[in-house]
Structures are given as C-alpha cells and as structure tokens.
C-alpha cells in the first residue's frame, strides 16, 4: 500500500521534528499508519468552516496534541491561515488517521506551536526541536514510472464519462504508467467487445 503525497511529507516532517523515531520505517499498511500514534500520542482534530475576505466559504482542518488547545487554535485560524478572514460556527470534531493529523498540524506552520499543547504529549520535545519539522526542506520523490500527463487526462475523461469508477487519492497519486495503460486498455477492450 502506498501513502498519499501529503502523508509522505507528514512522515518526513514528523521524523525531523522528533515525533516519529528516526529508525521507524515508512508504514505500509493501514494498521502501521494507525500504530504511529503510539509515538506521538492521540491528536485532536476539528474541521472548521472559514470565510475569505470576499466571504467565500471553505473548510480548514486543525489538528493539535491537546483537547484544551483545540479551541484556541481554531480561534486563531485567521492568524495561521492567510486565506481565512473569519471562523464560522460550522465546526465538527473528529479523530483522523495519525499521518493526516500530523499533516494538518504542519500545514498550519510555526504559528500552531504552543508549549502547553506539546506538554500534553508523552515524550518531552523542545520547541526548537519541533521547529525542525516545519523548517525541513522536503523534496517529494519523483517516480520514473509514474503515469504521464496524457495518461491521466485519458483516465480523467473515462472517469468523468462514467466508463471507469472513481479512483481514490492514494491510488491516483501513486499510479504507474503500466497501471494506467492497463486501465485504459481494459475500457477500450470492453467498448470494442
């Protein structure tokens, strides 16, 4: 099983920040992703409706380490997210996958760092240590055998016209040229038959 690009980046940053041990291998199953929480403890997440300056509604996700800090972090969203001008009462708490929650945490930048929030964690990391996770230069890996733009356009057309079922993000991002070819060919064969 492959991770999404966002999960891979969160894993990399989690290691740089010390949330995930250096020797921890990239998780390969859903269970391995779930078990990552044993390294950095459970996180608390909330999906929050925000408005831009123009009044357009959009949703942001906030994940932090302590329940008590969640309200404050949500209130501070307009400081943390350039796009957010206003926070609406449209909010919902949830528990997500540990890597997605870690991705949400890093996505809000240094501003989300809070000593009391971090004190809720099991191991005691310092703010400068955790800052490394935000500052680390991340270069997404480029797969040589990834599906080409032309193949993705062909697949998109097949999905939009209903010839192919939807593909989830994990599969789409990790799609190889060979897999894309097989999918496209399977539809052409079906149509010809």
């Amino acid at each position: 099983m492959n991770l999404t690009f966002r999960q891979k980046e969160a894993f990399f940053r989690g290691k740089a920040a010390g949330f995930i041990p250096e020797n921890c291998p990239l998780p390969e199953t859903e269970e391995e992703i779930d078990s990552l929480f044993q390294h950095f403890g459970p996180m608390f997440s909330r999906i929050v409706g925000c408005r831009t300056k123009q009044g357009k509604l959009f949703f942001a996700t906030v994940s932090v380490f302590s329940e008590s800090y969640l309200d404050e972090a949500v209130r501070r969203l307009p400081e943390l997210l350039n796009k957010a001008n206003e926070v609406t009462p449209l909010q919902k708490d949830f528990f997500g996958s540990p890597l997605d929650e870690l991705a949400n945490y890093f996505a809000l930048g240094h501003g989300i760092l809070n000593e009391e929030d971090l004190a809720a964690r099991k191991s005691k990391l310092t703010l400068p240590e955790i800052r490394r996770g935000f500052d680390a230069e991340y270069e997404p890996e480029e797969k040589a055998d990834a599906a080409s733009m032309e193949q993705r356009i062909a697949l998109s057309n097949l999905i939009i016209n209903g010839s192919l079922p939807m593909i989830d993000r994990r599969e789409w991002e990790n799609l190889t040229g060979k897999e894309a070819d097989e999918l496209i060919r399977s539809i052409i064969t079906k149509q010809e038959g």
Partner: protein
Amino acid sequence: MPPEVWSRLPEEESRSLVEAALRNPPRTFISATLEQKNLLRSDLAQGLLDGLRYEDIGELTSDEAKILLSISEERRWTAERKFRQIIRKEDDDTRLATPEQLKQIRQLIRERHLRPLSGDTLLKISNLSAKRLIWRGEMNRRSTE
C-alpha cells in the same frame, strides 16, 4: 477560469496548470448533488447550520456538502426541536414540488413576478424551494400593485 482567459494563456502556463489540476483525482471538486443541496436548504431553514448562508449552497462541492450534512446531523440531537420533527420537516422540504405549486410558479413567471426557469429546473424543484419562489413571486406582485 473563463474560456477567453484560458485560450490566451501561453502553452507553458496552460501545461503547468493542467499538471497542477491532474494532481487531484478526477471528480475531486465535483458539485454538490441536487439532493444534497435540498437537504442543506432544509437544515439551514431549520436552524441546524448556523454560519451557513443560502448563497453558499450553490457553490459547494460534494465533499463540502457531506461535511455540512454531517454537522447538521450531529446538531439534530441537540436542537430545540425534537429529532423526529426535524426528520419529518426534512422529508417534507425535500420532496418534489406539487403540480399545484408548479402551476403557481409558472403563472408568476408568466406575469413577470419571477425570473424565467427552464422546464428541467422546474421539474426538479423541491417543495421548500417552491414555497420560497412562490413567496418571493407574491412579494414581487404586491410591490408592483
């Protein structure tokens, strides 16, 4: 992006935009369905979606609508009205408009108290939307009398 802006883009720029768009799986930003929109209108009218505006509903993606519906679903349990009343109202609001309502709307359009609607839209209109249209049409009629 409007087609006229798109057609004027240099090839490099349009290619990089296509590449960026293709990072998302197809149908990621698909619009909310009519069923989702009708349910949201009902929940908003019942006070279950504090913070949402009527004008937001037309621009929502299907995933955003799902988030909003999960919020209103949670709020059904804590709302002042009873859970059963809310569900009943949702069913009533989201059922198709009656022939009588459609006739009234067509009459209001004919008399130019409402903007014209296509036949397709009229056939899909929900009871709640029909009630609102008739109310708006009648208000427009009164203001011109």
